[in-house]
């Protein structure tokens, strides 16, 4: 039996670093990059649907967080339904922590129910669902944002061993306790229980969502996270994939297909010399698919006024090409200290030279502590005014 395992589509997600437009015009993705990013998430859905169709999969199992929130607008719902309708393979949608089956559940909302393609099923009731002859899916949907128990573990405990000839797939959402040993979180999935259920044949595959990077358990590779099909954050290790699973009673053969096309990159750079600036310039220039790449720079070092101006120009120039390019201020430590060359470059005389010297002194003092940034800014302005 073959099916496609995926999760965490997070439809309706926006990223603030992808730009904004005035909030009054809200009601959909904002900003140009934002809109492309939203479209990319739907493209990923369409792509995995195509893969499922081509692989002749029995179903596509989405393990939670189909939507970014139960409160996304009708436009997001409509476009999601359009994307779901672009392929034939049946789809099973499990409510996750972002779209739990509570009173505001999107998957039960009239606008979704009305538009939902017929091959789409919502697993909003816990328990065993017969999805195909000889195939059962054990659903552990989230019914609220803060469940007080191991939802998967509860389902597994209630199961008898699968009847002969029946394959059982568990659909769950949440971290395994080994991945995130947070004692205070009651909803952690106990790995021991999962392994036991696999071992005694109650289930044959444990499909999980919530972790946005693809992952397989080392002890039993039938416990898997599919990861998000399109990247959502900078700290994700291996996003952008879906799993095509061939399952029998004993084993699962898993093929990883890449559908994501965006990249979120964090780059560390030390900036002290013009050569460092050259290197950063070159690195940025070498990025492929800039319009689908968001870059966060963590910069350390000390620059002169002229170099700082060059850095600003450099970032300004590349910034237009990238979907997002920004310095991660909290993790950066980049000092701007005017040097004598900066002062000479101004080529000032008389009182203007006196004023410039005073500002240099203030800016130089400040480099030792939390400083006279204003003096530095004033100097940079002076550079600009002299140059004009």
């Amino acid at each position, binding site marked *: 039996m073959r099916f496609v395992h995926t999760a965490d589509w997070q439809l309706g997600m926006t990223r603030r670093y992808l730009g904004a437009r005035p909030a009054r015009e809200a009601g959909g993705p904002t900003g140009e990059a934002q809109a492309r990013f939203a479209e990319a998430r739907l493209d990923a859905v369409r792509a995995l649907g195509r893969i499922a169709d081509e692989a002749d999969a029995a179903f596509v199992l989405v393990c939670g967080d189909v939507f970014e929130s139960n409160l996304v607008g009708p436009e997001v719902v409509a476009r999601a339904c359009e994307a779901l309708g672009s392929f034939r393979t049946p789809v099973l949608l499990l409510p996750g922590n972002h779209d739990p089956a509570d009173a505001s559940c999107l998957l039960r909302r009239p606008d979704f129910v009305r538009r939902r393609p017929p091959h789409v099923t919502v697993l909003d009731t816990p328990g065993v669902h017969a999805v195909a002859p000889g195939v059962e899916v054990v659903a552990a949907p989230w019914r609220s944002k803060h469940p007080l128990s191991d939802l998967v573990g509860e389902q597994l405990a209630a199961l008898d061993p699968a009847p002969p000839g029946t394959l059982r797939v568990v659909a769950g959402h949440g971290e395994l306790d080994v991945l995130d040993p947070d004692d205070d979180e009651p909803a952690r999935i106990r790995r021991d229980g999962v392994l036991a259920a696999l071992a005694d044949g109650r289930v044959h595959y444990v499909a999980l969502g919530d972790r946005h990077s693809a992952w397989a358990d080392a002890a039993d590779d039938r416990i898997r996270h599919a990861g998000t099909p399109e990247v959502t954050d900078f700290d994700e290790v291996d996003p952008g994939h879906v799993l095509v699973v061939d399952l029998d009673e004993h084993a699962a053969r898993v093929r990883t297909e890449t559908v994501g096309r965006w990249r979120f990159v964090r780059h560390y750079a030390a900036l002290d010399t013009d050569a460092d600036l050259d290197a950063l310039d070159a690195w940025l220039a070498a990025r492929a698919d800039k319009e689908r790449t968001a870059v966060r720079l963590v910069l350390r070092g000390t620059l002169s006024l002229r170099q700082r101006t060059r850095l600003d120009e450099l970032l300004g120039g590349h910034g237009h090409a990238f979907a997002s390019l920004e310095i991660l201020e909290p993790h950066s430590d980049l000092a701007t200290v005017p040097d004598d060359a900066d002062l000479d470059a101004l080529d000032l*005389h008389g009182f203007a030279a006196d004023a410039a010297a005073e500002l240099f002194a203030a800016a130089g003092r400040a480099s030792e502590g939390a400083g006279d940034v204003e003096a530095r800014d004033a100097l940079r302005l002076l550079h600009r005014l002299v140059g004009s």
Partner: protein
Amino acid sequence: MRLHRIRLRDFRGVHDREITLAEHGVTVLQGDNEVGKTSTLAALDLLFDAADSSRRAEIRHAQPAGVDAGPEVEAEVSTGPYRFVYRKRWLRRPSTELSVLEPARQQFTGAEAHARVTAMLDETMDRVLWRTLRVEQHTAVGQADLGGQDALTRALDRAASGPTGATGSTARPDPSVDDGLVARAADELRRYRTPSGRATGELRAAEVRRADAEAEHERCRAALEAVERDVAARDRLDAELAGVRARRRAHGDEVAELEDRWAALQSRLREVDAARGRAVLARERAEAARERREARDALVAAAEADAAAAETAAAAVAAHEAEHAAAHDERDARRGADTAARADAVAARRAADAAARAVTAARDRAELADLTERLRRVAEAQAGLDAAERVLADTTVDEDALAELEHLARDLLRAEAARDAAAARVELTAPAPLTVVVDGEEVPLGPGETRTLPVAGARALSVPGVLDVRVRPGLDEAGRDDAVRERARELADACEERGVADLEAARAALRAADDAARRVEEHRAALARELVGHDHAAALRAAHDAVRRRLDDAPAGQDDLAALHTAADEALAAAEEAANRAEEADAACRTAEDAVRKADTRAAVLAERAADARHAHTRRVEELRAARAEEPDAALATAEHERLTRAREAEREHEALAAALAGDDPDTVEARVVNARAVAERLAGEVARLEREHAETTGRLQAAGHQGWHDQLAAAEAELDAAVREHEAVTRRSSAARRLHESLTRHRDRVRRSYVAPFRAQVERLARIVFGPTLSLEIDEDLRITHRTLDGTTVAFGALSSGAQEQLGLCARLACAALVDPADGVPVVIDDALGHTDPERLARLGAVFTAATAAAGAAQVVVLTCTPERYHGIGAATVVPLAPSRRPRERGASDRAAPVHVADDVPAATPGTVLDLPRAPRAG
């Protein structure tokens, strides 16, 4: 820049005129109004500024009427290293020609020539200063705006840093960049803040955007939270509804069972109520009968009580009568006793007085005896005193006289002794007793007795009958005897003088006198003793007489004073005793009177009470009689008994019924029914409320589902983030702009302040020529004169007279002209100024002009005037008189208008109106 020559052709009223200016010092162009002085200046501006193709108003106005030629201007100018001749014609056959003479000869025409001239002027000349230093016609000579003039600034910079080099701004290849920089910094600051500091432009927009974004974000966040709350509320409502509905079903059965029991008890409850009503009614009737009987009993008792009271009152009246009479008797007795006691007291008082008088008389008699005795003693003493004083008065010998007599007696004795010692002696011895007569005296001689007789004189011895012996002394002895006699005689004389027989008598007399003196003293002391208390005997006598007269009236009696005192004291005590008794009797009498009055009052009260009691009793008896007539006492008692019996029967019946019902505990059943109904009602209300809330929450959630609150919040967050970033960035830029502007202006002002000193020195130097040596000026950083101090009085520039302002303004311009570098200098042009200056000051201003232009390389000064006398005081002036320059055919008409200057006109045959110019300034 220096102007050498200006030529105007067909320019306004000027047909053709060339003016040559002195290269140094002051050139005065003098001429009447409309002669074309101001036109010359205007022409120069047009030459430099307006392209030959220009048709602007000034140029069109420069076109002379009815002439087929365009206005034309030509000037010869040197500036910096350049010297050139520049000519332009406008409107008709426009042309521009430039001949550069120095440093190298070049020719340009058209736009190229214009551009070249503009470039040369921009390179070498401060054109703003050129305009600033000009004083236009008919405008007040106010302050020139000299701050920020580059040429002047350079000069002041040089002056300020010259000898000391303090500012450190020595080499400044292109100082003009500086001021542009400040202006650009100000422009940059104005992008963010208004001059008053309010946010504007980008900064304002960023602030607005941020505030909007914050509000929007808050709105979305609140909405999202409301949805979250509704989700939680729905969960809670679902659970609560299920619980309440289950409780309500269970409760329904319990209510039905209780209601049945309650209905059965209700009818019995009504029966008990009826019985209770009957019992109550019977009891009320019994009570009424009892009350009527009790009222009759009370009436009877009251009548009896009234009779007793009337009797008691009568008895009281009778009882009081005896008491009343006794009081009267007692009072009468007291009154008698009181009268007797009073008489006793009077008698006793009289007796006491008599006793006191007896004591006084006895005392007087004793005193009279004493006074009589004293009078006798006084008389005695007075007699003794008089006798003694008489003795004293008779005495002639005093101590001194006696001492003299004694002395004389001693002298006699010595003389006798001396005689006797020297005299012969006769010794007589008789063997048997014998009497011898010596000098007539018989001297008996015992047996064997010897007598020695001195023989001082003649002595005669005789034994009578027997013998007479005469013994005579020798001569010496006779002398001594004479001395003795002399002395004896002296003594006898003295005694006689004193009235005494001899010395012994004198001594006795003195002793008698002493004795008398002692007695005088004794008698005086006695007198003083007896007269003590009185001045003299007469007073004593008077006292004595007074006492005796008193005694004349007094009764005679015994004089035992002690007995009399005792009697008087006893009489006084008796009198006091009698007075006390009289007072006691009086008090008793008054008490008795009071008792009588009280007894009278009480008798009246008792009589009244007895009357009242009698009346009350009468009325009560009447009342009782009437009541008995209506209903006899026996009837009342019978009715009471009957009704009481009936009431007890009804009560017993009710009690029996009620006890039977109470056995079934109807209160508990009722309480439970009431409670069960209330619970049912409350549950129904609870369900309704929960269902309503559920419906409302569900409705809100459905509506929220279509709002896309997540999307809105995401957008709001992104917008807020962007707005905050933008605001912070703009704020940083605006702070930087403010900092830079502040820093630049502060340093510029500091430098300017250093410029003020040399400028002020120069202006003051010139102005002192006009105003005198006490003048000093205050000049601000923009090189404006703010205050003038003269003779210790400081006045703001604006408050000065027009004349003073004009003079100071001129001094400032000329100071500027004197200060700036010759290479930078521009001509100072003054078009008919100083209209406000009096002749005295005008003369001094002349000296100012000379002083300002005296330095080598000082700027040109050009003065245009129609009143040349204003400028006569300028020593170093080159005077150029201007006459009208007219076309030949116009001359006739104009001659009539201005005949005075016809003679000055120059024939039109010459190429223009070339004035005969002095070639060099006349030395002042």
